[in-house]
């Protein structure tokens, strides 16, 4: 019984600069795994490497038993991985509806209406705003749209890159509740990258701490929350 996603000894370089130094991460079916770390630790790089852009120089990434290390990005995505990218990257001049339609590019059009309904149930706000241009949404709404857009491709693994970035605490809470809901109701496997360690670890089944491109700690979310070095580095000064 192998994990849904297995990252083994992955090393990624930007030119001559090594961003990831042999990272091992796995995600089982139906679990939320959180990756926390400071700025520049390589969190986003790991998600990007997972999607084949940039490709890992060494190591292996297997998704559902298939080696995807050297596949082009669009093929990896079509295997059932969806990403809500860092900075949300909404199509600003296109409407909310068009953004969601773009999310469904790789999915079977027969499921479109049902999937749309699911996203609208999860984020009623998007339904109100469906004719509005993406660029005119607030930060929180844009994040909802980014997650909804990713969900429209009916993924088996959802990658979320810093969904709480730049959002007000109340909105962050909503986003995390939605993530929890996606996981519990759909059984969706989620790999969550966060700086907001407190929220993320409380939500996660398991977590990893990434420091300077290498995993320094791993454990269940509760274990990590209790670790003094995690508390000192990521949670001191309140949350």
């Amino acid at each position: 019984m192998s994990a849904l996603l297995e990252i083994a000894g992955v090393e990624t370089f930007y030119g001559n600069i090594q961003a990831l130094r042999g990272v091992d991460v796995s995600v089982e079916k139906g679990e939320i795994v959180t990756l926390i770390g400071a700025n520049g630790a390589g969190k986003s790089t790991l998600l990007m490497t997972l999607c084949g852009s940039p490709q890992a120089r060494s190591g292996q990434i297997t998704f559902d038993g298939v080696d995807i290390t050297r596949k082009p990005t669009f093929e990896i995505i079509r295997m059932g991985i969806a990403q809500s990218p860092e900075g949300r990257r909404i199509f600003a001049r296109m409407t909310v509806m068009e953004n969601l339609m773009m999310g469904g590019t790789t999915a079977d059009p027969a499921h479109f209406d049902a999937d749309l309904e699911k996203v609208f149930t999860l984020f009623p706000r998007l339904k109100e705003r469906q004719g509005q241009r993406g660029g005119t949404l607030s930060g929180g709404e844009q994040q909802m749209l980014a997650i909804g857009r990713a969900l429209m491709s009916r993924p088996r693994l959802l990658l979320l890159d810093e969904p709480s970035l730049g959002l007000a605490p109340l909105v962050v809470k909503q986003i995390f509740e939605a993530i929890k809901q996606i996981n519990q109701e759909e059984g969706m496997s989620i790999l969550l990258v966060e700086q907001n360690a407190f929220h993320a670890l409380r939500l996660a089944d398991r977590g990893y701490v990434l420091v300077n491109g290498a995993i320094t700690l791993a454990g269940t979310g509760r274990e990590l929350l209790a670790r003094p070095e995690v508390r000192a580095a990521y949670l001191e000064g309140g949350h």
Partner: protein
Amino acid sequence: MATHVRTAEGSLDLPAILKDCLMTGLVVFALAAPIIGLRTIDTPGGLGIDYRFDDVAFAVLAGIVGRFLLNLYWAYGGRRRPKAKTEEIAGGRAGAFMKKVGLYGGPAAILFAIAMPMLPFADRYTLDVAILVLTYIMLGWGLNIVVGLAGLLDLGYVAFYAVGAYSYALIAAHFDWSFWVCLPLAGLFAAFFGVILGFPVLRLRGDYLAIVTLGFGEIIRVVLLNWYEFTGGPDGVSGVPRPSLFGLEFARSSSDGPTFHQFFGLEFSSLHRIVFLYYVILALALITNFVTLRLRKLPIGRAWEALREDEIACRSLGINPTNTKLTAFAIGAMFGGFAGSFFATRQGFISPESFTFIESAVILAIVVLGGMGSQIGVVIAAIFLIGGTEVFRDLEQYRMLAFGGAMVLIMIWKPRGLLAHREPTLRLPPSRKPEAAPLAGGAS
């Protein structure tokens, strides 16, 4: 610059205005002294210089007075200098306006275009200008797919225009095939060249892409110029056959069968051919528009627009950017090719002279001035740029000055093009006022 045309009390700040006007005069003088003030003339001993100080003085005076009036307008007209931001906010109103224009303006314009040759003012000259304008509208619509929708800045669009023109001219010269057989072939050839260009430039973006396409446009022109045995080099290809209507030629008499006027029992008129050409280009242009509007509503069209908005997000959604860009290039090039073969059949003679960089620049200017991605914008900009330069022919040497000045004015008032509003690809039923969601996140 005089940002305070009024003092705090609300009265005119005369010294500031005067200073502003003086500055303007200085700028005009600096520009006008060499451009207007010096004029080279032929003298018996070679090239001489003629000084025209009175003209310079007039230009400076005109600049100062104009600036003064502009200042008065700002002070009393109630409207401050236009800000680009307001346009974004007024999106809703502009949207409603555009809906009306699209609903009534489009069909009305098409009806007018169809009826145009029958109207009393349609003489030979008017029709020629109309054909020219329509050719550029079609080219603008073709380039709009690449630049406006897919967001790929193409400075060498004229290459596809040239490929289309030469494919028709050469095929017709060598195989004696008719215009209607060669037209699709020319489109295919141009699309093929679009793919050839697409492959090397796919990894480039923005400025770099523009430079490579610029180079490609020049390469095509230089090849046409130097491949003497095949293209005739600078001599061009002459005697390009005219199109026929179901085999009916537009000539006084023909050796193979009746001509158009004989068949319909009309008096021979050279205007018949012009009117026919007018309808051909009108149909071609409308097909271009129709196909573009359809494509926009299909997944591929949405993918183009998404690619323009954010390439990384597109990749994260499983879109293959390579294929998406290639189709945009190929389809845009195909319409350029159609327009090219029409150009060849209308002129009857083509040479590399017709396919210089300035053509690419004018087509791009039409797309940008019209508002990238806007179909109606392209029409307005083409009428303005192409028709306008024809109308202003009487201005002689000041024609390009008027042309440039008008472009500057448009870019000041409408920095994102005449019609910058983007129509959504699908209409939604008006949503009911939703009940307030308890945790609706409007913050941040």
